[in-house]
């Protein structure tokens, strides 16, 4: 076991941790708003549920990055031995997902709460309401992409 593995694992842990925490906060906030709407009109349950889940994807992306990092660094079986240099590269690769995941989930929750309010007043505008939180998610997806490509890139390095 070398210092490199420690850094790489720290990266994987952070991406699951921060993105997951962000999603938990986000889904929680949106859930409160959704529950409020359902008390008034139970028939909107499925619509507000979808909106509530939107900030939840960051947590999944974080898990994804954590998992591919774990498999690549050999924690999940295989030899867990790598240079400090490479470990730091993995750590850096995980950072976009970790940080953007945390922040975007919280921001997306705000948009989702507002969208839930919109659906409560105008249920037929669900299609539009869904797009506003989805705009925020774009940045989580971009971060996910950079993290995935970086991890694949780093693992391809010698």
């Amino acid at each position: 076991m070398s210092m490199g593995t420690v850094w790489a694992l720290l990266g994987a842990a952070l991406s699951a941790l921060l993105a997951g925490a962000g999603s938990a906060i986000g889904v929680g906030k949106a859930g409160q708003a959704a529950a409020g709407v359902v008390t008034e009109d139970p028939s909107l349950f499925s619509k507000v549920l979808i909106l509530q889940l939107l900030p939840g994807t960051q947590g999944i992306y974080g898990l994804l990055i954590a998992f591919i990092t774990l498999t690549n660094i050999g924690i999940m079986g295989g030899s867990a031995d790598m240079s400090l240099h490479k470990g730091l590269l993995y750590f850096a690769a995980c950072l976009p997902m970790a940080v953007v995941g945390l922040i975007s989930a919280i921001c997306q929750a705000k948009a989702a709460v507002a969208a839930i309010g919109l659906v409560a007043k105008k249920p037929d505008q669900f299609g539009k309401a869904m797009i506003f939180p989805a705009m925020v998610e774009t940045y989580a997806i971009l971060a996910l992409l950079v993290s995935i490509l970086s991890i694949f890139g780093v693992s391809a390095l010698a």
Partner: protein
Amino acid sequence: MAVMPMKRMTIIAMRRDRKQLLEFLQRQGTAEIDTDTEEDGRYKKIDVSAQKQIFEKNIRSMEDALEVLGKYEPEKSGLLSSLAGRKTLTLEEFQEALEKRDNVLSVVSKINSLYRDYSESLAAVPKAEMDKEALAPWTGFDLPLDFQGTKKTVSFIGTLNGQLSLEDIYVMLGELCECPDEVDVRIITTNDTSTAVMFTTLRKNEDALNDALHRMSFTKAPSQASVSEGGQPLTPAKAIERIDAQQQRASAKRQQIISDIKGFADRREDIRLIMDYFKMRSDKYDVIGKLNQSDHVVIIHGYVPAVDADKLESALNDRFDLACDFSDPEEDEDVPVKLHNNAFAAPVEGVIASYSLPGKGEIDPSMAVAVFYYFFFGLMLSDAAYGIIIALACGIILKKFKNMEEAVKKTFQMFFYCGIATTIVGFIFGSFFGDVVSSVAQTFFHVPEATAGKLLPPIWFNPLDDPIRMLTFCFAVGLVHLFTGLGILMYQDIKNGHVLDAIYDGLFWYMFVGGCVVLLLCLPMITGMLGLSFTLGPTVKTVSIWVAIIGFIGVVLFSGRESRNWGKRLAKGLYGAYGITSYLSDVLSYSRLLALGLATSVISSVFNTMAGMVGGALPVVIGVILYAVIFVIGHILNLAINALGAYVHTNRLQYVEFFGKFYNGGGRPFEPFEEKTKYFKVKEEI
């Protein structure tokens, strides 16, 4: 495959026919009726609010009755029964059923009054309980609680706070009363918090004792509770008996009421039908109140899809004495929009409608949206097994519930096609429950990893092995999507006779963006980055440079063409050309196709690996069971979360990237006067 052409409808009919006429139009449900016409001197609108109120009151009481029935005799309904749709009746069946109207109304008021009795009876329970509780300490007492005393003596019956003994009470009396010796104290019962006591003394000491008791915070016994129905005082024990008997009678009565209510359960369908009938009448009166009518004539304006116009005209003429006219709408009229497409494209009409229906001069983008919608959904979910599950589930539901409401049906059809696309994409990129084939082979059949990976080879390649190639593919797909949007813009302009606009806003952009893309592909650095194996030759490079330059100049010169001032126009043009950056960000946005696709397959393999780790470490039978459990839970979760993601982001790509290129919307939806009922619809063939 387009926006349906509409005809403007004008009907001039006899006023006496108006109700039958509107009922007929309502059953047909093909005509939208204008409700914001102006009054003029001769033709006026009439006030129908009184009738409407009656209908609405009836509807409300029926809703209440149905709710009561649902509470005591719930209907057995399956999970999907809400998809079954409204039951269809012929006109004859409907009219026959209407004869039961008065009977149904009396049943409804019966149910409601039974339920009121029930609620009242139930509301009396807490009071009886309280009375009983208050009497409980006095059960052993053999006098009525309002016993005042005899000729010479006076009695106070009530409770003192705290658990007190006879001695305690005399001590307190000694402090507060001048004559404790002349007071007789009898403790009836005592508990943790209070003591029930009877004080008796001579009449002359009444005031003194009363005063003392007051200061000992003495509470009088609940004497009201211990009287008979006739007002005669009873002993506490008898009073409790009486309350119990009363409660028993009330409870038996409530049982009776419930069984009476249950007895009406078989009238549920009748109530629903009559409720729908009143709903239709209420809607009809809404329209009547907005029509212009004179003493003998009523005028109805509206819109009818051109395909239905002829049939409607002849049917109207057959049935009524009226004059009707169907003409093409004027250029500047606000004609309502209804889309009509083939079975492949129609399901996405809802997606378009929830953005906005096509505005004036815009074409119906359903076909283009459908192709890309299904494809993008497939790319983002990208798992053959998930696709099969979705397609099968939607297919079965569609087959089972043929009578589904149109909008719901379209949603299921849309996901059916999305499921098929997902299946195809899944096989192309070699994902079936992620890597379950290889995982099972390794865990239970001990196939080496290298061979196991080849058991279900992708038709093209596995994005996990070569994400850059997939990214390039996604960008290419995105470019095609954006260029399709631009193409529709040009087509729209040409169709509306603005050929020059088509060149300025469409062709120049094709040249500008297309030239730049080809130019980028000529650079070895870019092709190397995107993992493309080819490099374009220098001729292509020169041509692409020139095409891009012509496009650029065209955009600069013409995108500010509404400004007369050339300086301003060029400045606007340059700003317009800056819009190339939005193409860059639009294309990059399609990277979500890759990201979400990878998310599905990576999370699938996470669960498969977890299942494999658990399943492989245990004896075969337990291993298989645990593998299956983890597998099922994991994949249900993954399917749900990723189908949601795919749905949301497919919509986003359509709304933001695609519609941004050509589509403004703003069309007013066609809202025909129809049966907006809950349970039944009446069908009349014409």
